């Protein structure tokens, strides 16, 4: 257990729409700098948990505590870029809504995701993977301490997914960023995270929390390691049990 105050703390959190519960009794502490992934069957409320943490949705039960001084950024499933604005203007958006502009910072964030040379392009000129990287750069431009990512790589091919997951992990580990990541992919979850949280079918509740080695470097070699295979197997079994499959 870390002695640090959790970056995010959920206690007995529930979300209901009328009589229908989306998630129930979610209790979870996430340490600063930790990368946590939520996996679970479709419709189990993974995305709802992110929306609750971000404040985009109001919880119906329990408490959510975000440590003081946290700056939060959100990366959605779709890149959600302004089609009329250049890459640089898109990345600048959070700053300009705040009344500021910092071109040097925008360039730095674009360089972090490997798109420094595409700053003047429009989203339509970019591939799906590039658009998602712009979306990540836009999230980084706020210099967040807490990054919420809702299945950001779902529409990309496997190779591109691993590339981006590797980049996200590298950025998070070098900047001390706390990441809460939602995915359907067991491989992605095990490759990216320090901890994988497995949720049950709707209404989602935590059924398992699996910690992985928090070694900073996760390269292509890691994907071929026994440790990775074991982690995938453990998460997979937990997920199948959570979905109610007979094993």
């Amino acid at each position, binding site marked *: 257990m870390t002695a640090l105050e959790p970056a995010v703390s959920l206690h007995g959190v529930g979300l209901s729409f009328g009589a229908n519960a989306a998630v129930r009794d979610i209790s979870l502490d996430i340490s600063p700098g930790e990368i946590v992934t939520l996996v679970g069957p479709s419709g189990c409320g993974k995305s709802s948990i992110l929306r609750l943490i*971000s*404040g*985009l949705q109001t919880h119906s039960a329990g408490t959510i505590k975000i440590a003081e001084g946290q700056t*939060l950024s*959100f990366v*959605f*499933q*779709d890149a*959600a870029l*302004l*089609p*009329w604005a250049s890459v640089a203007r898109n990345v600048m*958006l*959070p700053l300009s*809504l*705040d009344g500021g502009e910092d071109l040097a910072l925008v360039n730095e964030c674009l360089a972090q995701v490997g798109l420094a040379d595409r700053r003047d392009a*429009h989203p*339509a*000129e970019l591939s799906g993977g590039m658009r998602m990287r712009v979306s990540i750069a836009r999230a980084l431009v*706020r210099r967040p301490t807490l990054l919420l990512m809702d299945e950001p790589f779902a529409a990309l091919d496997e190779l591109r997914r691993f590339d981006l997951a590797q980049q996200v992990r590298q950025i998070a580990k070098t900047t001390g960023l706390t990441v809460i990541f939602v995915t359907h992919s067991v491989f992605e979850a095990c490759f990216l995270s320090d901890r994988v949280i497995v949720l049950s079918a709707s209404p989602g509740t935590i059924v398992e929390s699996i910690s992985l080695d928090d070694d900073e470097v996760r390269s292509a070699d890691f994907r071929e390691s026994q440790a990775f295979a074991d982690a995938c197997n453990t998460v997979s079994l937990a997920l199948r049990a959570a979905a109610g499959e007979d094993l």
Partner: protein
Amino acid sequence: MTRRILAPLFAAICALALWEVLVGALDVKAFILPPPSDIGASLLDGWAALLSAAWHTLKLTWTALSVAIVLSLVLSLVFSASKLVELTFYPYAVVLQVTPIIAIAPLIMIWVGLDNIDLALIIIATLVAFFPLLTTLIQGLRSIDRSLKDLFKLYGANRWQTFIRLQLPATLPAFLSGLKISAGLALIGAVVAEFVAGSGTGQGLAWTMLEASNRLKTDRMFAALIVLSGMGVAQYYLLAWLEDKLTGHWVGR
């Protein structure tokens, strides 16, 4: 590109040649169907008068279109801000749309009065033009990407920032495609209104056609019709060009 222009042009030349030959061979009276050469001559002879009439109709069309733009923008924003207001008033907008304008035009003439004939014409053309703009704008406002709306909310954008930096630009494609339809309808509305007003206007292209019809000058009617169609086509392509310039790069054109 060349084929796209040359093929219909060639078809038109063939049709006109056939028309010219058939009218001569069958000895059709000019007041029933004048040969294309007569229509061409009428176009050249009455060029100044036709241009002045076209300008009058165009001014009327664009004034009505401008009013329709402002009206539909305001209404779509009010409707998108309040579901109750939309539920209350949208059916009346539909009633206005489905009622044939030709049926209510005389009423508008009576209410506004022949002293303000231009105002009556603008009202009629506006009524025809405004509905497609209203529906496309409402649709455009509704279909803004939910993640983008969430993003603006998350990053603390106020209502004004959300309107100026998200809603307004995001509805531009819907607005421009609605504008292409509405501009054509505004022109039709202006011509219908001029027809209903009859000699009350004494200036526009519809009046030119009415007057030529009364004198059985069919070639002049055709000449006015050609100018009218040309205006409609030019207006459509001008707006299509504007659409491409403003939003083409959104889809990578």
